[in-house]
């Protein structure tokens, strides 16, 4: 596999209906009813916007309109549009920038509109993600025939459905790889949430009980979509394979070595956080390979970020990761979050503070995780968003000092 094969294509981004809410069990057997075609018109001139809306509505589209770039991007995300008309000169964002941002999550046909002929010449020579260009003023008939031509070139319904089924199945498999079993660990609760930005994603977490406590793995594979999901599943399997090695550092280095060369060849990497909890003492031993977004939350509301001890697995040869540990006192939590949450904030400090505030005082680990998900609302988050929490219950039986 080359690096190029990890790039998004239309099949990667086919839209599969999914809940915006937290979901741990996938709704099986979703009906494959055809949905109406949706269009978003991003145009600041109200007259032209009105005209575009009329033409598209007449063509049978469900149309959403936006007068600027940011609300336009949001509308495309919310409606999962099939077609976008995009004015080049918008009050808030350059049309080309809007186009770039749309291409990060949408495979909608994008038609760019511009009033300037010289711009049109320049644009058509560039590979900027748009599917067609129209010069203003345009005739409604020309516009109509361009749209028809785009959709004629589109994939066949049968191929579309097969690809959708594949993706749906992949999403089911990925969900089934998340830990299902309730953790029954005296004095602790464990919870996790996972919201891929597409139907499948590169984030994942895993945990399982051991005689003395719990093992926890949290990973974020480079990129998004199917390629990232394949790498995530591999990392999960490899980390599970070393569970019986009593030496954490040894186990981690063994596991990472066994996937590093594959990752190197595919031009990819995975950030990996792996922890082992000794339930009796509250001691957590961990290794952090390039993740850097694990936090020790103290019962009194304090928070400490655990810095990573080396590069992501597969990113750079000859890496060696050192083991570190922390003591979970009653009321303390270990929380690991994906960078999809970090992206919302301007700095690591702001991020740390937001995690601390949103989780402090939450009655359960599950509710704390749900609150973390809310930090990156589904409407605006561009990356997979994942959070896991291991909480030592306050007043729990144990030997660690408070």
């Amino acid at each position, binding site marked *: 596999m080359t*690096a*190029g094969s*990890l*790039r*998004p294509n239309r099949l990667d981004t086919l839209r599969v209906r999914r809940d915006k809410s937290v979901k741990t069990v996938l709704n099986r057997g979703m009906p494959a009813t055809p949905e109406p075609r949706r269009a978003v018109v991003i145009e600041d001139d109200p007259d032209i916007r009105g005209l575009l809306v009329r033409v598209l509505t007449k063509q049978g589209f469900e149309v959403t309109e936006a007068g600027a770039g940011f609300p336009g991007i949001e509308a495309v995300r919310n409606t999962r549009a099939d077609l976008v008309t995009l004015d080049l000169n918008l009050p808030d964002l350059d049309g080309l*920038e809007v186009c*770039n*941002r749309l*291409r*990060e999550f949408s495979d909608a046909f994008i038609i760019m509109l511009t009033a300037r002929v010289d711009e049109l010449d320049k644009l058509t020579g560039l590979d900027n*993600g748009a599917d067609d260009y129209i010069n203003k003023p345009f005739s409604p008939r020309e516009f109509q025939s361009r749209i028809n031509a785009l959709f004629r070139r589109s994939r066949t319904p049968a191929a579309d459905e097969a690809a959708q089924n594949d993706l749906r199945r992949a999403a089911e498999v990925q969900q089934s790889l998340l830990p299902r079993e309730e953790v029954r660990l005296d004095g602790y609760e464990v919870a996790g949430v996972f919201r891929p930005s597409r139907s499948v994603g*590169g984030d994942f977490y895993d945990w399982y009980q051991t005689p003395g406590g719990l093992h926890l793995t949290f990973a*974020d*594979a*480079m*990129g*998004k979509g199917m390629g990232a999901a394949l790498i995530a599943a591999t990392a999960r399997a490899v980390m599970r394979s070393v569970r019986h090695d009593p030496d954490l550092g040894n186990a981690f280095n063994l596991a990472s070595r066994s996937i590093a060369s594959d990752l190197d060849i595919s*031009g*990819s*990497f995975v*950030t990996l956080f792996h922890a082992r909890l000794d339930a009796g003492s509250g001691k957590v031993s961990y290794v952090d390979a*390039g*993740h*850097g*977004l694990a936090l020790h939350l103290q019962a009194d509301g304090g928070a400490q970020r655990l810095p*990573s*001890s*080396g*590069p*992501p697995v597969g*990113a*750079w040869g000859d890496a060696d990761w050192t083991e570190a540990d922390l003591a979970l006192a009653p009321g303390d939590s270990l929380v690991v979050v994906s*960078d999809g949450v*970090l*992206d919302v904030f*301007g*700095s*690591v400090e702001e991020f740390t503070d937001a995690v601390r505030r949103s989780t402090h005082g939450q009655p359960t680990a599950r509710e704390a995780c749900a609150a973390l998900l809310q930090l990156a609302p589904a409407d605006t988050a561009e*990356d997979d968003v994942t959070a896991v929490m291991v909480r030592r219950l306050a007043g729990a039986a144990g030997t660690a000092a408070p």
Partner: protein
Amino acid sequence: MDLSYEVKDSYAEIKAAGRLNMVSAPKLREFVADVVASGSSRIVVNLEDTAFMDSSGLGALIGCLKAARQAGGDLRIAAVQPQVKMVLELTSMDRVLTSYATADEAFGND
């Protein structure tokens, strides 16, 4: 993302302007591969106008660094902006991808 390059005395400077993400990462990889193939293996990627980089973007920089080293040269980055710096530090990749204040300084001492 807009990419351009200029061959200087002892290195080639590549200017990357825009968001370095899953969409633009393959473009940067191809662009740097072309520059390396054309004979310049000492490369500075000027990130002055790159306000955002995600994991795919980081993967591209790492891939480009490997390509430059394989060709006997090196790749260094310059004028790194706060979000990009944050990603490099979180992932500990700041130890591998050395950053300099300006493109001129990147190969200043060798």
